[in-house]
Structures are given as C-alpha cells and as structure tokens.
C-alpha cells in the first residue's frame, strides 16, 4: 500500500510561499505595509556604484521568476547591462532571461530615482492587459499612515496615506504620473531597507498629500 506523505517545504519553497502571501496581501490592499521574510540566499554581487542591493527586493522579485519570464534591472536612472554580475547572478539562480526593459515581464529598480524609468516598461494591451510589467522599486523607508501620498481605489476602504521619506520629488512625480490608464499600466511593489513592502497596483490612484495641504481648496 502506498501512502502519500506530505513532504515538508524546502527552505526556498517556504520562502517563496510566504513572500507570495505578503505580495498578494499588499497588492490586494494598497496602503497596508507588509513585512517580507528574510532571504535564504546570501553573497549578492554589488551594484555598479559599489553599494549592495536591497536583498529583500531582489528576493521578492526572484520568488516569481522562472524560465518562462524575463527581467530587467536599473541602478539609479540607468538600465543595467545584461552581463552585469548581479544580472547574471539572478539569471543563473532563477533561469529568467535578462532582456531590454521594453520587453521585460519584471523590472527591478534598485534606486527610487529609477521611478523615472517606469514609462519605458510594458503597459499591456487592451486584449491582454495582464501582459504588463511588474516592477519592484527599492526605497529607503516606507511609513504606513505617513503623510506624503494619498491612495484611493480598489482594496482601500476610503483612503490610505503612506510616507516615503528620502524619495526625491521628481521620483515621486514619476510614480504618480502615467496612472489612470486602467486597464493598462504597471503594477509596482515598493520595498524598503527593513523589508517592508507596499503594493501599488494599476487600479490605485495616487496623489501627493503634502501639496494638497499646502494649497487648500479656495486658497
């Protein structure tokens, strides 16, 4: 008699499963800040400027990569080449193809300034809006309930606010721009240095809260 016995998940399977649940929860409830689990791999190659990449963001992106999808990376405001050590490190472990940004299924933006590159990514088509890019944007810090961005849309009861200290105004503007083209658009995960994650699906309307308070209606 053969009995099926549940094999315990391997560390990587467990990591992928738990990471997915945080990503799903964050994308379904924009404004809620989730905590991603710790990456089981180490020794990530450094970025072109010599700084280490955010391991949680790399791990979160890699948890969704396999041989059927492609990815692109950017450090600062420039796209990284396909033969950069970090690109090869990710490709070797995930089997995903490094490609040009306009063809990428996933984009890993290692610096908040990379938000200006979001316009170069796949937006999907009306027939297949799901064939758009999913971007992971590294930021210094995410503050739930902070007063910089005001979020409304599906998944949010009323409105949510979030603070992104250390993100330049130009990057914030780039994050807000090119929205409101539903069903087309890019779905973004913001991930900070402590592993906190904020989901910004294309359905979320983002407004700058500070500017609104500086110029109240009727002023």
């Amino acid at each position, binding site marked *: 008699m053969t009995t099926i016995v549940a*094999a315990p998940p391997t560390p990587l399977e467990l990591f992928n499963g738990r990471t997915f649940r945080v990503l799903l*929860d964050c*994308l379904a409830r924009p404004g809620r800040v989730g905590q991603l689990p710790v990456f089981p791999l180490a020794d990530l190659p450094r970025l072109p400027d010599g700084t280490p990449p955010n391991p949680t963001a790399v791990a979160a992106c890699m948890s969704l990569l396999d041989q059927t999808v492609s990815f692109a990376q950017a450090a600062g405001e420039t796209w990284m080449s396909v033969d950069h050590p970090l690109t090869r490190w990710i490709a070797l472990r995930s089997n995903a193809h490094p490609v040009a940004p306009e063809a990428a299924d996933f984009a890993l933006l290692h610096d908040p300034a990379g938000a200006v590159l979001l316009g170069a990514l796949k937006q999907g088509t009306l027939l297949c809006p799901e064939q758009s890019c999913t971007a992971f944007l590294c930021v210094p810090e995410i503050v739930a309930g902070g007063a910089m961005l005001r979020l409304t849309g599906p*998944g949010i009861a009323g409105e949510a606010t979030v603070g992104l200290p250390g993100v330049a105004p130009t990057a914030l503007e780039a994050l807000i721009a090119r929205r409101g083209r539903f069903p087309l658009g890019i779905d973004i995960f913001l991930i900070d240095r402590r592993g906190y994650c904020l989901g910004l699906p294309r359905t979320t309307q983002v407004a700058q809260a500070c500017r609104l308070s500086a110029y109240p209606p009727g002023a």
Partner: protein
Amino acid sequence: MSANIDQLYNFALLDEDAKRAIRRSLLKAVALPGHLVPFASRDLPIARGWGTGGLQITLALVTPDDTLKVIDQGDDESVNAVNLRRLITRTTGITTTVDTAAATVIQTRHRIPEEPLRDDQILVLQVPMADPLRWVEPHLERATVMHGEADYGKMWVYLYESVVRAGDLRIASQYPVIVNRRYLMDTTPIPRWDVPKLHMAETLYLFGAGREKRIYAVPPYTAVEPLQFEDYPFRTEYRPGQRCARCGAENAFLTTHFVADARGGRWEATCSDANYCAKRRAQAEATA
C-alpha cells in the same frame, strides 16, 4: 503488509514552477479586478471540472501556517469537499477546520459562507464557466475583444430579452456583475443571495477555472454591481417569512429538500451553510 511511504511529491503537490506561474497570474488578476487572466492549468489527480481551478489556487497559496476550510454548496461534508480536503491535507499536512471563523483560506464551490469574512481570510472559488459573455458570444476570441473594449451591449440585450420573454430577469445563478466599473464578470454558480457579499467586502476573493484555464479576482473594497434595470432591479432569493427548519435562521440562504415521514413526507427548508446552521443550533442549546 508494510506501508510504503512515498515522499516523491512536493509540498502542496504542484512543482515550484507551476506554483510560480499561478502566483504571477493571481497578482495580475488582483491588479485587474474582474479580468480573466489565462494560466496554464496543470494536470491533477482530480478531473478537470471538479474544482481543479480552485484547487490549484489553494495549492499555490497555502503555507504550513494556514488553516483550511473546504466547502461544497455550503457543506463541509459533501463529496467534492471531502475529496479536495483530503488531497490538500495529504500533500501539505496543514490543519483543516469546519469553523468559518477559524479558517485562513477557504476553498468553496458555489457558496460564500454566511458568517461575515474577515480581512485576514482568503476565499477561493471553484469556477465552472469563466466568461459571462459565453451566453451571448460563443467565440472566445470575439468575447476577448468585447472585454477589451468594454463592449457589453449584447449582454444588456440578453437581459432585456429575458424581461420581455419572462417578465423578469431570469438568471438563477452565475449572475453577471460589473467589477470596478469596468469588467463584466461571471460570479460562478453562487446563488444571487451571495452576490451582494462581493461588493465592498473585507475579504479577497480569488476565482479559478481549471477547465477554462482562467484566474480572476475581486480585491477587497471593490465595487461589484449586478446588471439590472431601473424598473427590473436585481433581487436575491429572499422570500418574506422564510425560516430554517433546523436553526430558525431567517436571514440565510435556504435550500429545500424532501423529508419522508409516516404521513407521506413534507418539504423542508434548511440553511445551505452547514457550519453556520450547526453554530446557531449549538448557541441556542447553550443559552436554553
């Protein structure tokens, strides 16, 4: 006879690549409320059409920390629920429950539990027919273009004809809804009773159609509006004076069944949600 322990299966049966593909489709489905996202439906030890879509979502979703509830038509003990639950527990080892409040993931066929669901719970629905336009446009390619252009005129004509022919909106289940004011979505064979529970809910709803190879989702706090006319509004199955013969619930979805007795038998209406009914009876006993 000694038991041969077979550990050739992965945790949650599916291989990691299959789970990743389903997870990617789920994320896109959440970002596009009501839109049908294609996915590669894998072969399972259960035939297509028996809940494989919901099963694949559940298998891609569960972690060892989860508590699972599986229901079929509101009942934890019916054939489909028992078999799916057994497959999931044997391949994952996670705990299961019949208590709606104790579950973190609920897989369901054709019902949404009566007890209000919380924001830390996920409801996974098994879907037999994914595209609501199937009724008016049998060609999938043309229906996809209609979805892309939000061209739902034919559906409105279908509803109008239903009113002209039958005097009312004659849709018993699978009631079509507009999600987030954009996509027309099939609600699966949940009764009309459950359709309002999708609107601005606290819970995330995930829909899986294994045979049709489609995944779609309704995120929490999303507008879900049933198609209706001003003079022929959408109505649930509620009948004034309805009452469960077992627990006495008046505000629950009831199913009628024949009970044979010495005088020939009678029709009895009881709650379709077995756990809800049992909880209410236990509560009544405790206070009596």
